[in-house]
């Protein structure tokens, strides 16, 4: 799977450190290739929900966290991680971790760019407080870049997305909402 590596991933290839480390690295890369079932352009590593992969004896243990507590995709993701590890020749175990809590700030810069290119506006940084009652978030249209956008609904096609409309190019779009 070397061809699928980004420069950053290639850069963190192990320089040595023995078989275990190498196995761990391979297992991590296998798990990191799993894509989100709802947003197939981003991997679980991009989203920051793959916390770690470690070798425990001959078992590769992947730790995955939730985006939203009720996210129905989590089972699909866990099964996909298990399958990816098995395909890479490991005995897999997937653990669900809840601390530290995931927030949209865990999404990598690369992940944010992939979301934008796919037509989903990436989340505002957490400083844009969701607690400000009736506060409006400024969201740029992922198609034309205009900030002239209006919220249609704070609840969109999945738990993690809100529905917006661009008033400049008139296209509706999803916004990955800040949490």
């Amino acid at each position: 799977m070397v061809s699928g590596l980004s420069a950053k991933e290639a850069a963190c290839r192990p320089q040595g450190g023995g078989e275990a480390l190498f196995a761990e690295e391979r297992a991590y890369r296998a798990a990191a290739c799993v894509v989100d079932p709802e947003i197939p352009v981003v991997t679980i590593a991009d989203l920051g929900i793959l916390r770690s992969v470690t070798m425990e004896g001959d078992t590769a243990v992947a730790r995955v966290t939730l985006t939203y507590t009720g996210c129905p995709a989590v089972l699909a993701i866990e099964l996909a991680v298990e399958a990816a590890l098995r395909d890479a020749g490991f005995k897999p175990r997937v653990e669900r971790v809840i601390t530290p809590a995931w927030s949209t700030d865990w999404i990598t810069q690369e992940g944010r760019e992939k979301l934008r290119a796919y037509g989903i506006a990436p989340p505002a940084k957490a400083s844009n407080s969701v607690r400000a009652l009736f506060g409006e978030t400024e969201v740029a249209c992922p198609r034309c870049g205009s900030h002239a956008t209006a919220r249609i609904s704070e609840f969109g096609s999945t738990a993690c997305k809100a529905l917006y409309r661009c008033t400049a190019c008139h296209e509706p779009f999803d916004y990955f909402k800040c949490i």
Partner: protein
Amino acid sequence: MAATVSREVLTAFLLRLADDHLVIGHRLSEWCGHAPMLEEDLAMPNMALDLIGQARALYQYAGEVEGKGRDEDQIAYLRRERDYVNCLLAERENGDFAHTMLRQLYFAAFMQPLWQGMLSSSDAHLAGIAAKAEKEVAYHVRHAGEWVVRLGDGTPESTRRMRAAVDALAPYVDELFESDDVTAAIVKAGIAPDPATLRPSFEAIVGPIFAEAGLEWVEASYGQTGGRQGRHGEALGYLLADLQHMQRTYPGMVW
């Protein structure tokens, strides 16, 4: 050094929270396919998903703490009405949209300070659940709050309905803030804040929304209570019949 609690007490506390979330989440899910507009038809199941997800996390943990080998499904599907310890507000019927939005606002405005208090819980697992839920509930407060303003300060008809909802739900507010032996032990162990202390936070959320909506707070002439002891209104039985019918018809069935 904070006091510790017994398994029984922690389980009892977790079941209250979990039952609240499952029951009100199920209620909200009943709107799926019936909402007044498409955006709301997405919004309500979305929030129901949050609530039922939170319930699952709490049931899983309650099952572990209890140590009798019950999993989340057994706890949710195989207990009877009298074993459910949710607050009565959670089980109130949807009624019209005004009733539902006001019920959701009350519950979210109660849970927001409770989750915030549990962020620093001495129980690390519960603090982890709270870290996620606290952010989710902020969306629920905002959603329900916006609707309460829109309907309360809307047309004569929507105002009439919103006021009727305020009257109808008034008797179910006080129960949220009740304390008893279970909450006292939980507070002492630093697991969660005392519900009785959450009232000012609740009022700080609901008050400005009512002011903007032109609604007046109504004091109930009597408060309904008993949910935490398993004494429920007629409404819960029908809800559980719907929720549990597969397990009751085919005991032990799995997907």
